[in-house]
């Protein structure tokens, strides 16, 4: 495999784009709203791009698809991206998509739980959607502020939609959740918020962006630039117009309009900022996710190596 | 003891249907040995399977000691024509013979002993520990005879039981059958192609006609007992009866193998 096999490498067209057909992977969650807004409002088309959005399972799988060539670009969370780069994958982040806001990623406990503060979590089981990822990173930093370490708890992997059941069945003592499951467990099970995990060192934490293979970025600079322009426009709308996001959510997720209106959303950054990204890398080093520091700027296009 | 009334059977349906039995009436008394002869494919095995309750006949009925045969009756043994497929390849010869004896309330030792005795009687005590597929055709046939005799059934059905053994063994097995019958007062229905045999062992010989099978002859064999392979076969009645049966079988044969 490799990007040489990817679809339709048309010669330069009117805009001089190296490639006009792009397949991008996205998760059916609010993070990727801008991709769908850009497609819906025709921003991609304006740039001469034909973009197909395919659902993916998670960052790791999507990155493998980049390598194989079934995707040209994909949404991914930054923790996965840095881990992949540290493992030797050559990838570039080309757009920022999503950033944490207060109460967008909370630790939840069952209604009648004896756990009142994060300090009570010692020796308990916590559900996260994926280990060695943003959830564990954020929860660990909350634990740290309460004098605990990662070793004091046990992380268990569950898909977000199933966490409610695990809380109810007392399989886990707490669950790190995001929307719309977050609202659902509060409504259905009366689950309670134990802590907002996006505070202090993780406040306004960068969550997700779009990555491509390094080779893709070098071979298709104009296409990448066109893509970035389209996303920037869409991010602008998402950042300023919650209604637009509420409207787009039911079109690509099974979140209905009523739920979309009440859930807590993160924010949609309008630029790709290397210092913000560096926070992720630094926290990962601090918590031992990365063995050696990574310069975030090496992951931005134009910084090869 | 055994009463067959108006028994008929048709295999299949529609244009390919085959009417094998066409209304058979037959009574067999307790302790009687009835031989059935008839041309190949006429319906002898079908009749036997109906008596054994292995086949639900299309019409008529079979009663055994007054009760209609619906299920396989109790206290019955069968020596099948296709003996090799009726032995269980996963059991040794002696296990094959002793298996049915479990129903007789014997314990393991008794079963083994009875099985060994029966095997000895058919000349197979040396092969007890072998598996059926290690035996020759005739030996397999003798195992299935031993199994049936060891069981000491009230009614014994035998479908060409001595077809695969040599002449001498055949005679011995005929005598063995007669002896066991007398000892335990069994009722036996025996199908055979050997007309001499039918007259030698039978109290009666029933001749069936070609499909649909019907009874064309029912001869009582009144030979002085005990029978003996040499003297009985020389008896004038024997010679006469065997000629009679031969005539009946021949007369009833249908499209013969071409003799052009």
């Amino acid at each position: 495999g490799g990007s040489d096999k990817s679809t339709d490498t048309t010669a330069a067209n009117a805009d001089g784009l190296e490639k006009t057909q792009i397949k991008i992977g996205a998760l059916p969650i609010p993070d990727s709203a801008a991709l769908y807004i850009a497609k819906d409002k025709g921003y991609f088309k304006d740039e001469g791009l034909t973009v197909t959005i395919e659902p993916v399972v998670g960052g790791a799988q999507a990155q493998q698809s980049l390598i194989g060539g079934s995707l040209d670009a994909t949404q991914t969370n930054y923790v996965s991206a840095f881990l992949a780069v540290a493992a030797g994958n050559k990838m570039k982040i080309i757009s920022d998509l999503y950033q944490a806001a207060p109460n967008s990623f909370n630790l939840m406990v069952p209604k009648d739980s004896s756990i009142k503060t994060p300090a009570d979590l010692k020796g308990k089981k916590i559900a996260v959607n994926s280990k060695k990822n943003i959830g564990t990173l954020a929860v660990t930093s909350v634990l740290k502020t309460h004098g605990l370490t990662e070793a004091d708890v046990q992380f268990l992997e569950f898909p977000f939609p199933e966490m409610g059941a695990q809380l109810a069945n007392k399989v886990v003592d707490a669950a790190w959740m995001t929307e719309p499951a977050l609202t659902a467990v509060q409504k259905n099970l009366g689950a309670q918020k134990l802590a907002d995990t996006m505070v202090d060192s993780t406040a306004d934490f960068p969550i997700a962006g779009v990555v491509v293979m390094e080779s893709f970025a070098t071979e298709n600079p104009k296409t990448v630039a066109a893509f970035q322009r389209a996303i920037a426009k869409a991010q602008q709308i998402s950042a300023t117009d919650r209604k637009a996001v509420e409207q787009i959510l039911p079109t690509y997720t099974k979140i209905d309009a009523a739920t979309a209106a009440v859930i807590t959303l993160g924010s949609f950054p309008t630029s790709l900022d290397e210092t913000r990204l560096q926070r992720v890398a630094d926290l990962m080093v601090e918590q031992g996710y990365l063995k050696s520091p990574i310069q975030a700027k090496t992951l931005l296009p134009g910084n090869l190596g | 003891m055994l009463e067959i009334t108006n028994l008929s059977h048709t295999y299949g349906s529609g244009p390919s249907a085959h009417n094998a039995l066409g209304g058979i009436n037959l009574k067999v008394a307790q302790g009687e040995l009835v031989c059935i002869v008839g041309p190949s494919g006429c319906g002898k095995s079908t009749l036997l399977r109906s008596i054994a309750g292995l086949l639900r006949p299309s019409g008529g009925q079979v009663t055994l000691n007054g009760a209609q045969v619906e299920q396989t009756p109790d206290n019955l043994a069968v020596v099948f024509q296709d003996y090799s497929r009726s032995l269980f390849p996963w059991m040794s010869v002696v296990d094959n013979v002793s298996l049915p004896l479990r129903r007789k309330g014997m314990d393991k030792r008794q079963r083994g002993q009875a099985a060994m005795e029966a095997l000895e009687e058919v000349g197979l005590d040396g092969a007890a520990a072998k598996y059926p597929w290690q035996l020759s055709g005739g030996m397999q046939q003798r195992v299935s005879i031993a199994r049936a005799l060891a069981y000491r059934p009230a009614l014994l059905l035998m479908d060409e039981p001595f077809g695969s053994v040599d002449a001498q063994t055949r005679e011995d097995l005929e005598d063995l059958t007669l002896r066991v019958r007398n000892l335990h007062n069994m009722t036996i229905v025996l199908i055979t192609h050997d007309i001499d045999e039918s007259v030698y062992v039978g109290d009666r010989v029933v001749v069936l006609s070609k499909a649909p099978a019907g009874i064309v002859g029912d001869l009582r064999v009144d030979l002085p007992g005990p029978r003996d392979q040499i003297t009985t076969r020389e008896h004038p009645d024997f010679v006469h009866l065997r000629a009679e049966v031969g005539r009946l079988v021949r007369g009833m044969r249908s499209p013969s193998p071409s003799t052009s």
Partner: protein
Amino acid sequence: MTRHNPLDNRLLCGALGVAGLFCVMEVAGRTGLIDPLVFPLASTVLGRATALVTDGEFLSDVASTLGAWALGLLLTVALAVPAGFLLGSLPRVESALRPILEFLRPIPSIALIPLALAVFSDRFDMKVTLIVYAATWPVLINTMYGLKDVDPLAKETLRSFGFGKSAVLWRVSLPSTAPFIATGVRLASAIALIVAISAELLGGGAQGIGSYVLESGGSADAVEYIIAAAIWAGIIGVITNGLFVLAERRIFRWHTARTEVV
């Protein structure tokens, strides 16, 4: 002589069986044996599953999954049956390859998905490859077992008439192994469906039942969607299996006539 015993009707009995299970699930949900919050009520799920029939998007997903399923199964048969015959009739080759095959066989196709993603630039190809990988084993093994079950006397009969190895293979071994192979294919058919959906579910993609579930993953009642889709997977399984059984009964009348319960 025609008896109209309702219990002779396959469809009716099957439907009763399914209805029975449905009622049990519903009662379990209503009495709280299974918490409806944890696992939705049978009636809720049924409603969701019924609604999917009119969902054009879902139907095209089903079509896409079935496409991969059919192609995968076809390739499996084309590959595994000859391979089974080769291994079954050449003991030397079999013993040489056995360590490799027995090593590969238990490797979960699901564990291979991330690796397959890195190799295939086309998800359909990837799906089909994984299907073939997983579905080959039952067909291969059943073929080899069936081959061992061929009556030696039947083979000898043909050999005695001077037929060569290949003729014996083609005229005796194949027909008498065929019922075994058919069972293997029937097993493989369900596995192929399972792998197709699992690959979509764990590997992502734009089309397929698994992708449909994936898209609903962000919803609050995702579990309902998962189960509704699972029900459709099950129904497809019942239908395809029924078709296979029907075909087997027609083709192997000689086999069933001698052995089946009357």
